C-alpha cells in the first residue's frame, strides 16, 4: 500500500501542472468571459464552459497521457524502473489512474460550475457522458505513448486517433452509435433538465468504455513485452495527413452538396443574382452587373447596373424573360420581404420611415415596379411621427388590402396596384419593442398590435417580417430566428404555442450552432433565410466578398430533432434562395440553379 501511495504521490507531483493548466483554460477563461458579459450585458453571472470543454477536453486527455507515459519510458528511466521491485503493470496503472483523475477533474469541474450558475442545464448531459469519451481518448493517448515512447510523436499520434474517434462515426454509418454528437447535439428546452439516460447515450458510453479497455490492455501488454514502434518523419507525416484527410472526408460527407441540380441557367459573364422571388409559377430575378467606376470624394467606387427578368416556372423548367434596366431596392432592409401585389410579382410595397433631419419622421409607402426602369414609381404619404417612435413599419397584404403597421395602422386599397388608396388610419398605442425578443430564451411572448379588421394570425405574420436584423421567418406554427448579430452564428426554432388577440407565445424547440467543421468551411455569415414545407433554407456567405464560401444549407424543422441539417448546396455566389411550394428551390448566384428537395433522413 505504501508503494502504491508513493507512486501515486510521484505521479501527482509530475502531472498536477496539467490540472492547473486545464482548469485555467477550461474554467478560468470562461469565467473571465462570464464576468465580462455580466459587466456588459446581463445582471446575472453565467459561465459557458461547455464549448471549451468539448473542444479542448480531448486534447488535454491526449497531452496528459503522452506526458505520463513517455516521461518514464525513456531508455535510462525505463531501465531504472525495471531494476526496482515494482511490477510494470502496477507502475503503469498508477500512472493511468492519476492522469485520468487529472483529466476528469479538469474537464468536469468547469461543467459543474456551468450547471451551478447557468439557467441552461445542457451541461448536465456533457458532465455525465463526456467522461466516457475522455476516458477513451486518454487511453488511446496512453497506448500511443507506450508504443512510440516519444512525447511529441505520441501526442501527434494521439491527436490523429482523436480525429478518428470524432469523425469516423460520421463517415461510417455502422459506427454511428459511437458518434459524439449524440451527446453534444442533444438539445434540451431552456431551463429544464435534459433526458439524461437514453439508449443512444448508453450505447455511446459502452463503445467508449470498450475502446478504453482495449487500449489500456494493449498498452500494458506493450510495456510488459517491450513492444516498441520506431517513429520517424514518414510515420508522423503519414499519421497526421491521414487524419486530416479523414477529417476532410467526413466534412465532405457532412457538408457536400446533396441537392440535385435539375436545371442550370447561365447568366451573362460577371452578372450575379441580387434578389429573387417566385411563388412557384411566376416571379422575378434582379441581377447586378459591375458598371464603370464612379469617383466619389476622389475615391473610385464600382457602380452596379441592375437588370430585371421575369421568371416563369413550368413542368419543363424555368423560363426567363428578357433583361430590362432596373434599380436595386436600396431602401429595403437586409431582411425584409416586402409584400408583392397579388398577380404582379414585379410590384412591391415598401413602407419607408424617413427622417429629414428634424425631430419629425415621415412614414410613406414606396411602390416599386421593378420592370419600369424607375427607382420608385409612386409614393403615398401615410403619417408623421416623432423620431422617438419606432423607426420602421411592417406591411402585409390580406384579402386584397394592404396593411401598414407602425406607430399607426393604415389600411390601403390596392385594387389598382400602382395607385394604392388609403381606406383608414388608426393611431396605435405605444408598443413594447419586440425587436430583440428571440434571443435564445426558452419562452417568448410577442405583443400584437391592435389593428382593426386584421386577425391575430395576420398581425403576427406582419410583425414577423422584420425589415432589419434580427431576421425572423415563419412557416405554419414554426418560427425561425437568427440572433441580432449575424456573427453569432446561431439559428433558433420556436413553436407557436398560444395565440390570443393581444399576444403570441412561442416555445423554443431547437437550436443550430455550426459545428467546428461547418465554421471551418465558411458557415459564418448568414445572408438570407427562407422557410417552406417545414424546411429552412439558409444562404451563407457575404454578398460583397467572394472570399467567404457562399452556399445554401437546408434544415428540417420537423421531427424529434428540429434544425437538423438535411441539405447543402455550394456554388459560386450562391447567396439568394427561393424555395418553391413543390419542394424544389431556386438558388441564385453567378448562375441560376433549380435544385431538387433534400434527401429524406430517417431520424428526422
Amino acid at each position, binding site marked *: 500500500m505504501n508503494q502504491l501511495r508513493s507512486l501515486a504521490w510521484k505521479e501527482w507531483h509530475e502531472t498536477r501542472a496539467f490540472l492547473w493548466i486545464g482548469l485555467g483554460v477550461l474554467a478560468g477563461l470562461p469565467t473571465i468571459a462570464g464576468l465580462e458579459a455580466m459587466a456588459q450585458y446581463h445582471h446575472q453571472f453565467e459561465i459557458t464552459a461547455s464549448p471549451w470543454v468539448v473542444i479542448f477536453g480531448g486534447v488535454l486527455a491526449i497531452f496528459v497521457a503522452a506526458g505520463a507515459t513517455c516521461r518514464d519510458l525513456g531508455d535510462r528511466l525505463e531501465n531504472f524502473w525495471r531494476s526496482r521491485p515494482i511490477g510494470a503493470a502496477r507502475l503503469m496503472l498508477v500512472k493511468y489512474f492519476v492522469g485520468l483523475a487529472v483529466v476528469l477533474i479538469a474537464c468536469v469541474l468547469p461543467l459543474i460550475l456551468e450547471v451551478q450558475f447557468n439557467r441552461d442545464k445542457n451541461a448536465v448531459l456533457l458532465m455525465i457522458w463526456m467522461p466516457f469519451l475522455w476516458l477513451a481518448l486518454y487511453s488511446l493517448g496512453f497506448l500511443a505513448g507506450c508504443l512510440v515512447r516519444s512525447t511529441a510523436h505520441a501526442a501527434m499520434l494521439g491527436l490523429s486517433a482523436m480525429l478518428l474517434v470524432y469523425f469516423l462515426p460520421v463517415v461510417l454509418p455502422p459506427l454511428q452509435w459511437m458518434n459524439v454528437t449524440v451527446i453534444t447535439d442533444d438539445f434540451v428546452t431552456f431551463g429544464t433538465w435534459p433526458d439524461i439516460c437514453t439508449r443512444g447515450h448508453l450505447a455511446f458510453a459502452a463503445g467508449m468504455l470498450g475502446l478504453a479497455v482495449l487500449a489500456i490492455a494493449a498498452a500494458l501488454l506493450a510495456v510488459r513485452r517491450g513492444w516498441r514502434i520506431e517513429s520517424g518523419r514518414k510515420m508522423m507525416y503519414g499519421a497526421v495527413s491521414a487524419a486530416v484527410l479523414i477529417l476532410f472526408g467526413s466534412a465532405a460527407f457532412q457538408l457536400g*452538396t446533396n441537392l440535385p441540380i435539375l436545371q442550370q441557367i447561365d447568366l451573362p459573364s460577371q452578372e450575379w443574382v441580387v434578389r429573387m422571388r417566385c411563388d412557384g409559377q411566376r416571379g422575378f430575378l434582379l441581377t447586378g452587373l459591375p458598371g464603370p467606376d464612379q469617383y466619389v470624394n476622389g475615391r473610385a467606387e464600382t457602380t452596379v447596373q441592375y437588370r430585371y427578368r421575369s421568371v416563369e416556372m413550368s413542368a419543363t423548367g424555368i423560363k426567363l424573360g428578357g433583361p430590362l434596366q432596373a434599380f436595386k431596392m436600396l431602401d429595403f432592409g437586409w431582411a425584409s420581404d416586402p409584400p408583392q401585389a397579388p398577380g404582379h410579382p414585379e410590384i412591391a410595397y415598401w413602407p419607408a420611415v424617413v427622417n429629414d433631419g428634424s425631430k419629425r419622421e415621415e412614414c410613406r409607402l414606396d411602390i416599386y415596379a421593378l420592370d419600369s426602369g424607375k427607382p420608385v414609381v409612386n409614393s403615398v404619404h401615410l403619417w408623421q411621427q416623432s423620431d422617438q417612435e419606432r423607426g420602421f413599419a411592417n406591411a402585409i397584404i390580406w384579402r386584397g388590402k394592404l396593411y401598414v403597421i407602425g406607430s399607426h395602422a393604415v389600411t390601403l386599397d390596392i385594387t389598382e396596384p400602382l395607385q394604392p388608396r388609403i381606406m383608414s388610419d388608426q393611431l396605435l398605442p405605444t408598443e413594447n419593442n419586440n425587436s430583440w425578443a428571440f434571443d435564445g430564451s426558452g419562452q417568448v411572448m410577442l405583443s400584437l398590435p391592435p389593428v382593426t379588421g386584421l386577425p391575430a394570425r395576420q398581425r403576427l405574420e406582419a410583425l414577423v417580417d422584420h425589415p432589419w436584423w434580427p431576421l425572423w421567418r415563419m412557416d405554419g406554427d414554426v418560427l425561425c430566428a437568427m440572433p441580432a448579430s449575424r456573427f453569432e452564428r446561431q439559428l433558433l426554432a420556436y413553436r407557436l404555442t398560444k395565440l390570443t388577440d393581444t399576444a403570441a407565445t412561442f416555445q423554443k424547440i431547437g437550436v443550430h450552432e455550426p459545428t467546428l467543421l461547418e465554421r471551418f468551411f465558411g458557415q459564418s455569415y448568414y445572408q438570407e433565410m427562407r422557410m417552406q414545407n417545414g424546411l429552412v433554407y439558409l444562404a451563407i456567405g457575404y454578398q460583397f466578398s467572394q472570399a467567404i464560401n457562399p452556399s445554401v444549407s437546408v434544415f428540417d424543422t420537423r421531427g424529434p430533432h428540429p434544425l437538423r441539417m438535411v441539405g447543402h448546396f455550394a*456554388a459560386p455566389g450562391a447567396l439568394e434562395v427561393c424555395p418553391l411550394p413543390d419542394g424544389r428551390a431556386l438558388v441564385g448566384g453567378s448562375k441560376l440553379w433549380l435544385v431538387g428537395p433534400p434527401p429524406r433522413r430517417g431520424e428526422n
Partner: protein
Amino acid sequence: MPSLIWKEWHEQSWKLGFGCVVLVAMAVIGLRSRIIADDSMIAWVCFLGMVLLPVLSASGLVPAERSEGSFASLLALPVSRWRILAAKTAMGLVLCAGPMIAAALGSLLVAGGREMTSAQMLALYARSTASGILLFIWMLALTIRLPNETRASLLGIGVLIFWIVATLGLAYQSVPPLAMTVSPLALVYGFFNDIAGGPPLIGVLAAQIAIAIVSWWWASRQIAAEDRS
C-alpha cells in the same frame, strides 16, 4: 550528376508521393462532394500546395542531411559543389511541382469546365506552382546553412509569412505597381479573388527569374564557402 539525382530521388521520393496523395485527395474529395464552390476549392488546394510544399522541400534537402551527418560526406565526394546543389534543386522543383501537376490533372478530370473553364483552372494551378517554386528558391537559399530540419522549417515559415505580409504591403495603393514584381506571390496576388491590376505578367516573370538566379547563385556560394572553411 545522374548518381546525385538518383540519390536525391531515393531519399525524397516518399515526400513526392505524400504531397501527391494529400493534394490530389483534397482536390478530388472537395470537388466531387462540392463542399464549397469549385473556384474556392481549387484556390484552397493551390494555397495549401503553395505554402506547404516549399517548406517541406527546402527543409528536407540540405538541413535534414546535415542533421543526419551525411552532408559532410557528400561534400567530400569528388563532385563539384554546384552539381550537388543543382541535383538538390532539381529534386526540390519536382517536389514543388509534381503534386500540383497531379492535383491539376485530378481537378480537370473531376470538375474541368463545370464552374470554371479548364483554362482558368490550369492558369490558377500554373501560377500557384510558379509561386511555390519561387518561394522554394528563397527558402533553399536562406536555410542552406542551418543544422537541422526543424530550424529550417521554422525559417521557411518565417519567409512565407514575410512574403505574405510584404505582398499585402506592396499592394497598397500608394506603392508603385512595379514594386510588386519583387514578391514571389505577385503571380497569384489578386488572381484568387479576381482583383484587377498589378504589374504585367511578363514583368513579374522577368523580375522573379532574375531574383531566383541570384538567390541560387548565392546559395551555391554558401556551399562553396563552407567547403573552403
